[in-house]
C-alpha cells in the first residue's frame, strides 16, 4: 500500500483542529500553551510533507520548518516565563480568573 500525501495531511489537519479546540476550551494556561504547540507542529508537518511529495527538488519547506521549530521554542519559553510571573503575583494560572480588567 502506498503512503500518499493525504495520509500526512489529514493527521496534520486533525492536529491543528485539536489545537484550536484545546486553545478555545481549556482554561489552564499551560494546557492552552500545549494546544498552541500542537497547532505549530501541525504547520511544520504540512510544510515538510508538501516539500517531500510535491517539490522534492527544492528545500524551502524544510528550511521553513527548521525556523518554525526555533520560533515555536522561543514563543514557548517567553509564554512560560510570563505564566510563571503571573503565578508569582496571583498564585493562579486559570484564565477564568485573569479577568480583573473588565467593564
Amino acid at each position, binding site marked *: 500500500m502506498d503512503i500518499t500525501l493525504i495520509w500526512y495531511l489529514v493527521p496534520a489537519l486533525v492536529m*491543528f483542529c485539536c489545537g484550536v479546540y484545546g486553545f478555545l476550551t481549556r482554561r489552564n*494556561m499551560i494546557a492552552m500553551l500545549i494546544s*498552541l504547540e500542537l*497547532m*505549530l507542529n501541525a504547520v511544520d508537518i504540512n510544510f515538510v510533507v508538501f516539500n517531500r511529495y*510535491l517539490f522534492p527538488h527544492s528545500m524551502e519547506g524544510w528550511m521553513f520548518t527548521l525556523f518554525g521549530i526555533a520560533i515555536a521554542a522561543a514563543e514557548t519559553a517567553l509564554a512560560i516565563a510570563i505564566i510563571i510571573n503571573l503565578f508569582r503575583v*496571583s498564585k493562579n494560572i486559570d484564565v477564568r480568573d485573569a479577568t480583573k*480588567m473588565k467593564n
Partner: protein
Amino acid sequence: MDYSQFLALKQEIGLLIVFLLVFLTDTFADKKSAKAVPYIACIFMLAQTAYGFFLSHAPATEAFAGMYATSPVLVAIKNILNVGTLIVLIQSLKWTNSEFVAVRRGEFYELTLLTLLGMYLMISSRHFLMFIIGLETASLPLCALVAFDKHRYESHEAAIKYVLTAVFSSAILLMGLSFVYGLAGTLYYDGIAIGLMGQMGVMLAVALAFVIAGFGFKISLVPFHLWTADVYQGAPTSVTSYLSVISKGSAAFAFLVVLTQVFGAFYADAWEWMLYALIVLTITVGNLFAIRQTNMKRFLAFSSISQAGYIMLAIVGDNAMGISALMFYTLVYIFSNLAAFGVIGAIENATGKVDMTDYNGLYKTNPRLSFTMMLAMFSLAGIPPFAGFFSKFFVFTSTLNGTDSAALYVLVLIALINTIISLYYYLLVVKAMFINDSEQPIATFRSACSERLGMWVCVAGIIGLGIVSYFYDYLLTVVG
C-alpha cells in the same frame, strides 16, 4: 557567498548598531553612568532617523537572492516608523527613570529597538521565511515589554493575553502559508503570485482566509480585536503608545505588501468582500465600544481599533494614491495618538490617574495639557484644519479614485457616518476637560522636560501636517 549584499540592508545595520551601543552601555556601564542609557538611546535613534532621511533617494536594491528588497517607498515607510519610535522613546524618559523601572531601564530601550528591527525586516521581506522571522522578532519582545511593570498584576494579565493571542495568530497565519506553499511550490512573493495563477479553489480561499485572519489579529481588526482593550489597559503607558502606533502601522504596511504583491490577482475573486466586511465591522464596532469606555487607555484602544479600519480602507484603494494615503494616514495617526498618550502618560506619572472622570476640570489646573489633548482629539476625529482631517480626506479620495463601484461608495459612506459617531466620543474627553466641573481636579503640575518635548513635537506634527501640503506631496512623489 557574496557578503557585500549585506550592505543593501543600510537602515537595518544602522538600527543594529544603535541597539548594540545601547546594549553594551547598559551591560558594562557602572551604576552611575547607566543613567545615561536612555539619553544615549534617544540620541542615537535621532541619528538613525536622520540617516534614514539621508537614504531617501537611494535606488531600489535586492539582497539574499531576492528575499530582501528595499526601495524609496520602503525607506519612507521606515522613516515614518523611526519618527514614531523616537517620539515614544523621548516620552518614556521620565517613566524609565522612575523608582520601579530604573533598575532595568536599559531593557526597555533594547527590546523596543529590537521590535523595530523586526518590523523593518517584515516590511522589506520578499519571501515568507524572512517575513515570519521579522514578524516574530517584532512581536516576541513586545510581549516581554507588555509585562514590563513587574509589580503590577494588570501588566502580567495583559502580557499573558497578548502572548497567547500573538502565538495563536501566528499559528493560524503559518497554517495559511503552508497551504499557499503547497499550492504554489515556493515562498517568494512573486513566485507565489505566478504559481497560484488560475488556481482559484476552495483550498486557496481557506488559505487566504487564514492569512487574513492572522494579519487581522496583528492589526486588531474586528472580529480579531478581543485582546486589544485589555492589553492596552494593562501594559505600561509607554508600551501601549508604541503598540498602538508603530506596531499597528508596520503590520498594516506589511499587510498591504502581502495582499497586493502575493494575492493581488485574486482580489475580485477571493478577498475583496472579506476586506469590505472586515472594514465595516472594524470601524463600526470599534466606535460603538469606544463610546462606553471610561478608562482613557481602554478608550484609546477602541479608538485605535476603529482607526485601523480607516487604515485598511486605504489598502482597498490599491493604487499609488492609496499607498501614499496609507503612509500619510499612519504618519498623522502617529502624531495624534502619541500626543494623546503623551498627556495620559504625563498625568499618570504625576498623579497615577487614568480615568476619564479624573480629567474633569483639567483645563483650569493644567491648561497646556488640556490644549494638547484637545488638539489630539480633534485630529483623531478629523476636524479641519488639523492633520487628521486631511489624512481621512486622502484615504476616502484614494478609495474612490477612478472607480464607479457602488460597493465602494457605500463603504466610504459607512466610514463617513462613523467619523461623525467618533466625533461624539472624542469630544466627550474635550468636554470633560473644559466644561465639566470637579470637586477635586488634578492639581497643577509641571510635566518633565522630556514629556513636554515629546508633546511639542506631536503638536507641531498635528498642525504642520495639516497646514503644510509639502509632506503629502512628497509621499506622493515617492510612491509615484
